[in-house]
């Protein structure tokens, strides 16, 4: 649930002391992953939450160095992983590759199209949303590289099922989440014991809200794909959402294509991610807008989460991010 605050509440509630504590906790969790697992990896999609996690990882493992292209020297103790649906926004893929290159880190890409070629994913029709199918490719990538821990940027405020997930969340040997079997998480004494074939999902920014993320992006000047800020885009109005015109989301019969000033609040698969109308051109303006927003992040932007109230829980049980 987003902490949308009345405008008069504004910034006092979320000053630096509070952001510092969130950063401290996240860095602790990242080092815990590096120390506790043999083959961890960090999920990096180019989305804003994973950009924040990446900056936290730089702060956990590197040294600040203004002369370095990324601003930090040293290397991360794990590779980055991206599951590419083949329907990602090209500007996000471009941003991802540029960021990885300047950091000189290793990127592992799992291609959904490889799973389709193997026959482990079969689309009902060519333009079906590939978002839900990512799970298969993700689990195949985990098996192929024998990853035993995946760091993700999920937040508990995003969705009701996520609100209940542990910071170190166990997955059985089929990659499945068992919500009723969750291990109690006491203090910071994480129980990371696993059997071969099982793995963990680790969420350093569990306790951050959308507003915290934007405040931190602003404070740390974290680079993001440009589509997170106001730009002109061709869209269609559909069921209260602005659907971007792309090769996989064409205009339906009777719809008119308009050019609107928009920004994206989340960036995922092109077939299910919608922008919102907004003039916010930088992180500070997004912060101001987030403080007065009245629709949740997923409600405003994700076509797939609307299908059923329980859709996220179902997907999580199956091994989704």
């Amino acid at each position, binding site marked *: 649930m987003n902490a*949308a605050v009345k405008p008069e509440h504004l910034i006092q509630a979320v000053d630096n002391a509070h952001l510092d504590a969130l950063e401290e906790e996240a860095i602790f969790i990242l080092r815990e992953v590096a120390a506790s697992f043999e083959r961890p990896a960090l999920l990096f999609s180019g989305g804003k939450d994973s950009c924040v996690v990446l900056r936290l990882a730089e702060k956990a493992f590197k040294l600040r160095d203004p002369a370095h292209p990324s601003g930090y020297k040293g290397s991360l103790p794990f590779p980055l992983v991206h599951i590419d649906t083949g329907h990602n926004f090209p500007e996000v893929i471009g941003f991802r590759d540029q960021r990885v290159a300047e950091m000189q880190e290793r990127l592992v890409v799992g291609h959904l199209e490889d799973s389709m070629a193997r026959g482990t994913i079969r689309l009902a029709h060519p333009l079906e949303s590939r978002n839900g199918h990512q799970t298969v490719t993700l689990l195949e990538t985990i098996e192929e590289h024998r990853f035993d821990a995946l760091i993700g940027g999920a937040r508990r405020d995003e969705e009701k099922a996520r609100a209940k997930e542990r910071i170190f969340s166990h997955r059985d040997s089929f990659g499945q989440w068992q919500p009723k079997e969750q291990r109690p998480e006491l203090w910071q004494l994480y129980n990371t014991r696993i059997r071969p074939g099982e793995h963990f999902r680790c969420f350093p920014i569990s306790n951050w809200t959308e507003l915290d993320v934007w405040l931190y992006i602003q404070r740390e000047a974290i680079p993001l794909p440009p589509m997170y800020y106001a730009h002109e885009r061709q869209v269609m109005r559909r069921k209260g959402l602005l659907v971007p015109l792309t090769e996989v989301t064409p205009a339906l019969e009777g719809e008119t294509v308009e050019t609107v000033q928009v920004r994206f609040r989340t960036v995922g698969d092109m077939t299910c991610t919608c922008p919102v109308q907004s003039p916010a051109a930088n992180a500070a303006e997004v912060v101001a807008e987030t403080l007065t927003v009245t629709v949740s992040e997923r409600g405003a932007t994700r076509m797939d989460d609307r299908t059923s109230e329980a859709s996220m829980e179902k997907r999580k049980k199956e091994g989704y991010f």
Partner: protein
Amino acid sequence: MQALRFLTAGSVDDGKSTLIGRLLFDSQAILADQLDVLERRAAGNPVDLSLLTDGLEAEREQGITIDVAYRYFATKTRKFIIADAPGHEQYTRNMVTAAAGSDAAVVLVDITKLDLTQQDVPLLPQTRRHSLLAQLLRVPSIVFAINKIDAVDAPGEAFAKVRRALEAFARAAGLNVAATVPVSALRGDNVTQPLAAPWWNGPSLLQVLEGLPTTQERSDAPLSLPVQYVQKDAYQSEGAGFQPRVLWGRVAHGAVKVGDEVEVQPSRQRARVAALRRAAVEVDSGSAGQSLGLILDRQLDVSRGDWILSPGSAAPQTRFPATLAWLDTEPARAGRKYWVRHGNRWVQARITAIDSVLDIHSLQPLDAHELAVNAIGRVQMEVQHELPVEPFEFNRVGGALIVVDPASHRTSGALLVDAPVAEPAAEDW
């Protein structure tokens, strides 16, 4: 200001989910589309705010909360993180999970479930259990919220009676009660808005929460830092004659600065701090609660799980008394071997004796041979290697362990190191 982490605890149907829904709703943390879903479900009836927090399909079916959920809201002065702990008895382990990281506990008391005809109103077992768990886990502040105050006759008198019963219980149990407030979560009375009643001129629940302190670790104590992660350092090796390593860990208590002499446990080797790092930059000093990277002035054999301490301050032990909150359906038995995690070290351990189990009604220790799920007892522990344990009341990091079943890998218990027995038995529960 630091965010306040608090948990909410209460019995089934005490209106806990409604209370949280009310806090979120009144602080505008509920957004239009989420409210939309609720209004559709309500189909014309008043919106059920409790549905906001019932996240899993299974609990929507059962109508009870079955796992800890975390919620976030902010007011003008503070950000809050709520750990919503289930009240159903079989899920007490989740309440323990919620309590372990919290600065405060809001214990809900459903006034309609109490026998108000009696002079000394008997409390529900869950109220006792949740309060004792919160106290056991050293949650610094306990707040009693007496709910459904709108649903009783003569609410002023009823509230006063229940408050007397809670105060008597708190005195007997030694609870640190920050406040006792009446609320109606359903109507929103005295949650965020003051209660308009002649018999109440105290604060609203939110006013109480806005003023509560956060848990602070002590910086004015000897240094105690459990080594979390050892990182090879590529940038300090020139001229040092050895490959330095950065010893990362979060300071449990005390402070450290460049030049300080420190001692490594268990090797007892000493060195001086040559450099300090924090979050990708060099620093001169650091204190409790901060994650620091220490670079020592000589090569020592240090690995994850070791402790860095002020010289001479450690008193490592292999045997110690502890309080055990048991969370596993398979009972705790004396003689069985478990894994325990202390700081960042995993060692094998054995419960050598179960001294007693706490009776939540009489608050007295009773003889016991095993601890069933949800039981709390006093035990004697033996660990395979010496650990620098400290009483939990002095050091939350050095005094806490988790117990893990070696076969199932379940987190079976929460272990809190007791002070060595010196006090008379009357000090016991």
